[in-house]
């Protein structure tokens, strides 16, 4: 269980607080107006921002003092998820061995994931030689190999077309339920939340609200969400 225990992020012109928990597995959408702090929340969870007060707990263990690489968390950013000078296979391999000295079994796992994601035979290519959708799959492949119980997605597929994005989000949802991964998906598109997330977190007015079943939330939107969605 992920538990945000009185988490407070404070800056001179910005404040965000969160105090809730979420069970293992499943996809949670994070929505809210621009600048409300969706990305900051993810950065705090991933360990790039130190919270003013409060703790982040996973399975009752305090992970707040851990550096990003040691947290049970993997993350996909809006862009720059793959190193352009490394091949796809190397990019994936980094998840298993940061020095890229992979043994046979590890190499086989990389190939397996590539096959699984429909990237067979593309392992030796550089990211620039792949289409946007393929790059997204490759990045997903890497987090899959990282096999961390929590996955944070900071609108990584926003630049893709609707069909591709929906393909990839479907893939994310399937993988999440298959591996019992808890996925937090930041999106500015309410339809993403409605189609893929069983629960949704609303970030507005300095508060990260607790996850609510998506259907309920959109059926009875709070004022902040009404303002965001518009008429």
């Amino acid at each position: 269980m992920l538990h945000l225990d009185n988490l407070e992020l404070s800056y001179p012109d910005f404040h965000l607080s969160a105090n809730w928990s979420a069970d293992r597995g499943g996809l949670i959408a994070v929505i809210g107006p621009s600048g409300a702090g969706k990305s900051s929340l993810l950065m705090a969870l991933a360990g790039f921002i130190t919270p003013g007060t409060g703790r982040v707990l996973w399975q009752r263990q305090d992970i707040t003092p851990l550096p990003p690489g040691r947290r049970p968390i993997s993350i996909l950013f809006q862009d720059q998820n793959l190193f352009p000078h490394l091949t796809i296979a190397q990019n994936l391999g980094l998840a298993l061995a940061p020095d890229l000295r992979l043994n046979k079994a590890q190499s086989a796992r990389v190939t397996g994931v590539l096959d699984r994601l429909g990237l067979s035979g593309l392992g030796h290519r550089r990211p620039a030689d792949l289409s946007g959708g393929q790059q997204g799959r490759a990045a997903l492949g890497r987090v899959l190999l990282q096999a961390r119980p929590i996955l944070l997605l900071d609108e990584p597929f926003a630049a893709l077309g609707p069909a591709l994005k929906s393909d990839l989000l479907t893939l994310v949802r399937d993988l999440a339920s298959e591996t019992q991964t808890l996925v937090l998906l930041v999106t500015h598109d309410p339809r993403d939340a409605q189609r893929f997330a069983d629960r949704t977190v609303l970030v507005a007015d300095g508060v990260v609200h607790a996850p609510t079943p998506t259907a309920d939330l959109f059926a009875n939107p709070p004022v902040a969400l009404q303002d965001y969605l518009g008429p």
Partner: protein
Amino acid sequence: MANSARPLAPGAWALSSGLAALVLGTALVLALHADTFTLRPAEWAALTFTLKQAALSAILSTLIAIPVARALARRQFPGQAAMIVLMGAPFLLPVVVAVIGILSVYGRNGIVNQLLGLIGLPPFSIFGLHGVVLTNVFFDLPLATRMILNGWFAIPAERFRLAETLNLGPSGIRRHLEYPMLREVLPGALTVVFLLCLTSFVVSLTFGGGPKATTLELAIYQALRFDFDLGRAALLAGMQFLICAIAVTVAGRLTLPANLGSGHDRPQTIRIPGRKPLILDTFFIVATALFLILPLTMVLKDGLPALPGLSAALWQSALRSLLMALTSASIATAGALALTLATARNAQGSRLIEIAAMLPMAASGLVLGTGLFVLIHPFVPPESLALPVTVLVNAALALPFLYRLILPEARALHLTYDCLCTTLNLRGISKMRLITLPRLARPLGLGAGIAAALSMGDLGVIALFAGDHNATLPLMIQRLAGAYRMQDAAAAALLLVVLSFALFWACDQGGRRAAP
């Protein structure tokens, strides 16, 4: 997004303290051995002249560099790549060699005066303040052009396309794209050129035309050589450091944080319609090419005849210089990388590190050498340490250039990929091997090339330490010229130039090859 208040790595502190200790400590050693600290009126005159020639040269070099860089950025022509490479050439020339080239073009019997004679105009004399400035511009215009050209290339292609769709026209492009870029790039370029001219000694004295063209560096030379006044030398060195620190600080204040936006990898062609810009650009490209190529060609012409007859000892010294240059370049590159990686994060104390990294530019070779001599001499015969000391000092002297060169790319690397590395727990040697070195290969290669070539041509410290059997090529050139053997000296100078460029080219190409 990263926490801004992270402290600097202890290694970076140690390295920059070491650098500051080497540069300032040697001056301090002289101060400690001094009896009195007095400056003469002549030295105040030297200060004024030093500042005047450095400021004039810096302003002129950067002003001319702007249209040249613009022409290079927005035109495509055969040999353009070669011309950009040529831009690196004068900066790497040993001063003594460049003086030969400049004289062959602008001297009494030079090309310019022959042409003036043909059309019946009175001859032009290179000697005087204008000669000093002209020579400094020859050295530093290409460097300034390269720096400003990088600024142009860093403007994202999308911006230019946007400007085109908005139909901004040349004046709009200038105002909205080029002025902001120049505003950001010029202070750095001005500072670097200014600092380079600050310690110019041979140029000022050879072309200055008399004692009124006295620089601080010459005053230091006199204080140490003839008057043996260590206190005055230390004071003068202190003045140079102070000017350096002020220049770096002012430039730091003037330089805005990089805000060019991240562009895509390849430089774009900028389409500027119209005849007038085309004529202007052609003029600037042709004039600059002539300005740079003519003196270099004359060095070639002067040196070639005696080249086959050079003695075995000379080739040995060439090999020695080559190996020393490679070692020195490796040390300088590693040091600059460590400092840039530390400051790229903008951690606390970055400004101090930056000043420490720039300090060697204001260092007087003679003060450094003398200070080290005083330190080393009680323990071992200085000539037994001639080579390591020269290698280390040359590495320190080249470090500021490398630092400037690598820092922007290290910053970009940090901003772009540091978060990803962190989540992947990619650290230490693996991060260095897989990410940092490949991503920074280009500036590292270029920097190593510059360090190697600078070290190749250096005559500063070795002259104080060299013994019987460890002369470097520049020292041999000086010895040849000191024994009437001007032809051999010219040939050896040519050899030095060729080797310096070859080293520079090899390192630069190595970096490009290694880059992804």
